């Protein structure tokens, strides 16, 4: 790879060992993808996770003196003040989250603790070259905003934030951004939940860049958030096209770059049923709790839930995970208190896949998000997956159909 003087200086340790390590790995990544050069980024988002590997890398980089040139926004771990007030969590949990917080603070990150930067905290413009990790963020930035990011890992996005560069390959280049798979959606897309199900069809869609047709003209940010999140739960997708939504897809021909699709896939209601069968526990059972906000729920969704509950009392706890901005506005609007009276909690700056939820181990949850259900399986927390309205009713009755 051809490097500039600044990039060579980074590689040779002029800016310290931390930046040197970051650059060294980025060069190896670039070479494995055949990149010819490195290009500057304007934004970064790091999928901080407060897990062992995350803390190990962040502390290692701090120790090596690394500092971010492009301050990245970060994903949530969990919100220390909130859980302290709830008197939840073990001493070790607090130690770990405080260490993660300190490490990222020292690296110079923008501590947003929010997994929907593309809606809430770090929105790119068309054509910007950025380094976004977080499974729902990369496809949204590429497909909805028309910014350019590869599907960075939490680690490679952090390296990019430190050096301020990314190797130029993949989605940074025009020719790799064209659609390859025509996905004709014949399923009924009646609400945002259906986009969770569409995203979970990754196995049927296969490797490549899907171009979705047959979708409604207006698609909500929440639906597009869901689609990206689940595409990267069921597979690995950095970009999709929706004609009329994706800036680079004004029409089908442009989406495919004038070429024929490599493959055509039809998605029907039966596919959704089949997917749900595989990923959800069977219904007709009592549940222990309800969880929303993987990825983080918007203010609109908090308002919707509050209206649906409409003063009724929940028989099971409901946890609604959001950004701290959303929580703040919900506080001002009185929604947080109304929900709390019913038995629902707006939880800021928190991810479901965190040790702080360990008191839920062995319990049965109810959620509308397959991603929320998928990762905590490892913790022995299992979920029934249903649409949002069914989940809200489930929290009231304590049972799910």
């Amino acid at each position, binding site marked *: 790879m051809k490097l500039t003087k600044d990039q060579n200086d980074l590689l040779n340790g002029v800016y310290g060992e931390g930046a040197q390590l970051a650059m060294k790995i980025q060069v190896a990544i670039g070479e494995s993808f055949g990149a010819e050069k490195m290009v500057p980024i304007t934004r970064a988002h790091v999928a901080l996770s407060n897990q062992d*590997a995350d803390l190990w890398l962040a502390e290692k980089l701090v120790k090596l003196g690394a500092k971010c040139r492009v301050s990245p926004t970060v994903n949530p771990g969990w919100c220390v003040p909130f859980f302290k007030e709830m008197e939840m969590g073990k001493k070790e949990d607090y130690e770990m989250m405080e260490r993660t917080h300190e490490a990222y603070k020292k690296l110079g990150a923008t501590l947003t603790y929010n997994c929907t930067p593309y809606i809430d905290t770090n929105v790119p413009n068309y054509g910007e070259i950025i380094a976004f990790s977080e499974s729902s963020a990369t496809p949204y930035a590429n497909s909805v905003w028309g910014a350019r990011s590869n599907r960075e890992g939490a*680690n*490679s996005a952090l390296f990019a934030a430190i050096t301020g560069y990314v190797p130029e390959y993949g989605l940074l280049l025009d020719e790799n951004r064209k659609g390859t798979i025509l996905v004709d959606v014949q399923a009924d897309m009646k609400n945002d939940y259906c986009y969770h199900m569409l995203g979970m069809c990754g196995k049927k869609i296969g490797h490549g860049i899907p171009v979705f047709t047959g979708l409604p003209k207006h698609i909500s940010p929440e639906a597009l958030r869901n689609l990206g999140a689940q595409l*990267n739960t069921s597979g690995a997708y950095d970009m999709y096209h929706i004609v009329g939504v994706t800036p680079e897809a004004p029409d089908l021909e442009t989406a495919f770059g004038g070429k024929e699709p490599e493959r055509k896939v039809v998605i029907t209601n039966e596919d959704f049923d089949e997917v749900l069968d595989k990923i959800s526990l069977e219904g007709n059972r009592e549940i222990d709790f309800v969880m929303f906000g993987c990825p983080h729920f918007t203010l609109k969704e908090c308002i919707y839930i509050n209206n649906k509950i409409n003063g009724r009392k929940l028989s099971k706890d409901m946890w609604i995970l959001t950004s701290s901005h959303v929580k703040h506005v919900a506080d001002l609007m009185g929604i947080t208190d109304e929900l709390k009276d019913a038995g629902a909690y707006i939880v800021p700056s928190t991810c479901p896949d965190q040790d702080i939820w360990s008191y839920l181990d062995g319990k049965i949850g109810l959620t509308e998000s397959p991603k929320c259900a998928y990762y905590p399986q490892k913790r022995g927390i299992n979920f029934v997956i249903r649409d949002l309205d069914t989940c809200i009713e489930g929290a009231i009755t304590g049972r799910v159909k």
Partner: protein
Amino acid sequence: MKKVFKCHKISEGRVEAEVVISKDDIMFYLVDPKDGKIIEPEHDIEGKVIANKILIFPSGKGSSVVQADGLFQLMKRNNQPAGMIIENAETVLVTSAILFEVPMVDKVDKEFYKEIKDGDKIILDADNEEITIL
């Protein structure tokens, strides 16, 4: 007779081990760190042990976080794969392989996939971009 196939280096190193072949993409988070067994329901190689094996699979999948943490947990107990042979390189998996120094290659000769069987012993030499079936 030994058969040698060309490939393309992603993460450096040379290892000799048995292979495990998966038709499905892999996410290391749903592998049990204690024994390296795949615990993802409905997965092509659910229940198989990948610890210290050379893993042949199409690509990585899953969130940008869990791939790295899954591998890290396996490494803490020495149950990581000895090497990886993939078809579709993607950044998340590539970065984790380089960071954790697990040899990895892609772009292997098509013939290799016709010859290779589960349990075969091979040498994966990423440095010289060669795979040898023993």
